[in-house]
């Protein structure tokens, strides 16, 4: 084996990536060639230097910052999830942008504590005082979506702090002025009006079961 061929193989040789026969040939060549030995030594030194470089530590807030951005990303994907249930395309982007802005602060607050949000399951039992079924929270950590439905008609009435109006079903909702983190939901067709309140994002200790209903 000549010097040229040996030097081509020095990198894989130094990384143990040659066949046994090639390893032996390179080693035998280096036994009698000081130039290639030096070349090899330098490769080893560079590798050793790189192995020994310092490991700079990130700022303590990096993990938090990442999780905050993930929360934002997740909020947007939740919105897309909802929007995928057919919103007029030209409005979708505007809604998504507005909702993302409202989601960010809510989810960002939650992020350092384990990124929990409210759970949602949907009750099939009609609420006593309203003509529609409402969303109930049962688990600790699910995205905060609030919905109501009558029969097969489902209305999403609030999503991560963003009340919504469904004009096709004549339902509307708004933030309740008195109840913290609460919503008013109105379904005029059956003359129902409800106020839903929950301790949204404030407690991770226990599930919030149900929403107080006021006529």
């Amino acid at each position, binding site marked *: 084996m000549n010097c040229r061929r040996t030097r*081509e193989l020095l*990198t894989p040789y130094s*990384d143990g*990536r040659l066949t046994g026969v090639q390893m032996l040939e390179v080693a035998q060549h280096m036994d009698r060639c000081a*130039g290639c030995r*030096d*070349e090899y030594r*330098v490769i*080893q*030194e*560079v*590798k*050793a*230097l*790189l*192995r*020994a*470089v*310092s*490991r*700079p*530590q*990130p*700022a303590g807030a*990096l*993990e938090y910052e*990442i*999780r905050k*951005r*993930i929360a934002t*990303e*997740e909020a947007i*994907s*939740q919105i897309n*999830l*909802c929007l995928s*249930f*057919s*919103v*007029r395309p030209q*409005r979708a982007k505007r*809604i998504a942008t*507005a909702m993302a802005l409202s989601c960010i602060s809510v989810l960002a607050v939650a992020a350092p504590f384990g*990124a929990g949000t409210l759970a*949602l399951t*949907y009750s099939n039992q009609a609420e006593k005082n309203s003509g529609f079924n409402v969303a109930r929270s049962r688990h600790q*950590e*699910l*995205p905060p*979506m609030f919905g109501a439905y009558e029969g*097969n008609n*489902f209305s*999403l009435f609030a999503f991560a702090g963003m*009340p*919504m*109006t*469904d*004009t*096709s079903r004549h339902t*509307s909702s708004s933030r309740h002025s008195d109840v913290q983190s609460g919503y008013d939901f109105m379904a005029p067709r059956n003359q129902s009006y409800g106020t839903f309140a929950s301790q949204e994002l404030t407690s991770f200790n226990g599930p919030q079961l149900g929403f107080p209903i006021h006529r």
Partner: protein
Amino acid sequence: MAEMIDAAATPQSLAGAAQGQVERRHEFDRLVQRYHKHAYNIAYRMTGNHADAEDLTQEAFVRAFRFFGNYRRDWPFDNWLYKIMSNLFVDDLRRKPKARLQSLDQPLDMGGRSDDVFLEIPDAASNPERMVMSDELDEHIQRALNSLPADFRMTVVLADIEGMSYEEVSAAMRCSLGTVRSRLHRGRKLLRQKISQFQMERKLAEAN
């Protein structure tokens, strides 16, 4: 603020989708916790400074989260993350018009001088684990890394700093094993030259 939404979803479909998202988020949070420091280290060696390293790390995780559905669970997550990071970094450089991008995936002409250049470093081969590096040398190495083209830098960082195998680097960088090998070969040579050059300049500066 009221907006119109025609929500035709069934409650079950929404709740099911939401449950899936939560599980996905939990899994991802654990991965962030586990890998963010490591990812930052690579990003730091790639970008050469703290602020850009944090940006690159954040962006890589966000991108990973966005495409988490495509992540093949039989792949190590960190390799997949570094692949995203590598794409981000290289693409970002390509977008910057002033960035100097040269292809070194061709034979390198060392002008016959390369053999004369040697590093003045401690005898690392004898006991590499115990080598203590001065801040100055660390800085020289970073400067030398910065001078490498992005593809080469990433290859060297993944293989020689992170200790990844040729196969892992090849998968992370979407290139062949042969390319990994040649980039390592020439990347190390270029590093050697640059570090020597910086040391020389330092000595001259001190002498003056």
